[in-house]
């Protein structure tokens, strides 16, 4: 009887697919379930690494949704510093599936996040996206006005979405104990202050991430029954962990959970595809060459490798160098980098 491994391609075997692969050879890691049509409207969101996904798609002239815009002739550095030109709307980095789901539910009026305005030095910040106004706003009323406008833009973006691309970044988050509201940063990092009576650490499990995304998918399907999904896991390790584990162990736990959630989604839904950015960057074949000296930030070469593999697999080519003004995670607009300030 033939072995079930007998006729498998070279990519199925470690020796031929990895062990004997040249160090600079990206490998055949990605075979999309379906090809992205550049005419389809694409919604991008997720962690810092997701900024590169949107940038690469824009560079390939894919119709990336952007509902909050600044005049075209302004510098990308100014736009990016205020959260423009990064995602489908100006929501900043969304590190967890829980926050993504929460944002979608907020646009429909199902929920209203608790303690939504944080104060710092007499300036007021939107707790759900504190980095998009780096110096805050003058009054809480202005924060509310901007939030209402932003939610209309997010809703508009969701209504138009044909392909939903989400980069899972973290499992660790902070939640409001009474309501379950989660935040992109811990209170006290960018603004606000941490009160253990009000907030608690939450480390999402693989199943919770999976369920969050199932709920996200269901809502998107209500809006657009033919909506498709691409999920990926950011290869960037945690800057810090509040789990009590060593940060390297916590990173493995977090990434494994996110990867498992993606696998469950792909197994269950035909319309969900997984892009292996985590595997491309962390491949044993590359021996860490795609990380900067801090062993955390992804190098430009790494980003280019991953994004070019994505575009190529979808028969897309870069027409321009449209991407955020950054090329590595350390220099991106990542709130979690601020946690390093707390390192002893």
């Amino acid at each position, binding site marked *: 009887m033939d072995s079930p491994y007998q006729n498998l391609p070279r990519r199925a075997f470690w020796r031929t697919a990895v062990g004997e692969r040249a160090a600079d050879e990206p490998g055949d890691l990605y075979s999309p379930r379906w090809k992205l049509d550049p005419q389809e409207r694409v919604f991008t969101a997720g962690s810092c690494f997701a900024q590169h996904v949107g940038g690469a798609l824009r560079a390939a002239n894919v119709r990336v949704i952007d509902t909050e815009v*600044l005049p075209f002739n302004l510098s990308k550095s100014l736009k990016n510093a*205020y959260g423009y030109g990064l995602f489908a709307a100006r929501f900043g980095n969304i590190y967890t599936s829980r926050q993504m789901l929460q944002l979608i539910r907020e646009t429909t009026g199902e929920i209203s996040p608790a303690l939504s305005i944080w104060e710092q030095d007499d300036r007021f910040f939107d707790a759900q996206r504190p980095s998009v*106004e780096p*110096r805050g*706003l003058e009054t809480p009323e*202005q924060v509310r*006005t901007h939030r209402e406008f932003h939610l209309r833009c997010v809703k508009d973006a969701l209504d138009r979405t044909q392909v939903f691309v989400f980069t899972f970044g973290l499992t660790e988050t902070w939640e409001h104990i009474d309501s379950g509201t989660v935040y992109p940063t811990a209170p006290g990092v960018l603004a606000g202050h941490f009160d253990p009576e009000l907030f608690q650490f939450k480390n999402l499990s693989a199943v919770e991430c999976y369920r969050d995304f199932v709920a996200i998918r269901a809502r998107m399907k209500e809006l657009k029954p033919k909506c498709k999904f691409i999920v990926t896991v950011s290869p960037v390790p945690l800057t810090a962990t509040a789990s009590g584990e060593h940060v390297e162990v916590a990173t493995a736990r977090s990434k494994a959970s996110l990867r498992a959630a993606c696998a469950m989604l792909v197994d269950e839904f035909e319309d969900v595809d997984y892009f292996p950015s985590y595997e491309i960057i962390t491949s044993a074949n590359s021996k860490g060459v795609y990380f900067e000296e801090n062993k955390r930030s992804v190098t430009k070469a790494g980003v280019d490798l991953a994004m070019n593999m994505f575009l190529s697999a979808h028969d897309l080519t870069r027409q321009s160098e449209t991407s955020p003004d950054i090329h590595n995670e350390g220099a991106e607009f990542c709130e979690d980098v601020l946690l390093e300030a707390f390192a002893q």
Partner: protein
Amino acid sequence: MKRILVIGSSHAGAVKAAWDEMKQENSTIELDFLVLPWPHLSEFHLYEDMTYGAKAPLAGQKAIDLSNTINGRETVSLTEYDLVFWVGYHSPVDALVRLMHNYAIDDVIEHDAPQRLSFILFREILMEFVNNCIPNRIWLDAAKQTKLVIHLCPIAAETCLAIPQNKKNWQIATANSRIFKRILELMMKRLSARLAHHNIDVVEQPQETLAENGMTKTEFSVGSIRLMNAEAHPEKDFSHMNSAYGRLLLNALFVKLGTTDKESPNRAAS
């Protein structure tokens, strides 16, 4: 004799018309013009050796247009002049007006706009608009060697409020004329300071040409003529100014020349 070279776009038409009327009164000043209307002006560049003009010989209509400038010359050396007056220089005002039309801005303007800005970001955008008006490196180097004075494109005349496609932008921007004028003042102050840092002087739009709402009074636009052939601009033209405007501009320039003129290094060396 002071020799001034006027460069720029069709906006220099006002200066040319005014100079035709004024030159008899100003025998100690000589003005040469090397101006072309858009889009022909994009053929002109400044080169490292201080030569300004067309890189390659112009042909067709461009050459005909040029024949009305300085005796058909296609290039000049800036070193021949005591002062270079750049008229119709890129202005940040149109970008400001479009911004105010498209965005509600905290503490500045509330209207049914498709986008919203915080005041801090608005301020940063204005600074970028100003920074985008700084000339390129070759011009900055030239300004170290010769006296360079610029005059921005004039603010649109009130005439444009009668033109549907332009009306709304300007109506929104000037709805609170006190704020609009204050913003313009701050932008100009900032731009002047940035340019002064590079040894470039500015002749601002004369105050007497400005209406209460911050736009240019219609009377300074009516009867404006084209650079070439002295043809009148269309009646609804709101961006070009007439000889009365040009006269005020030249007077302001001559005052500046008389009071602040310094021997330019190249002249002193010759």
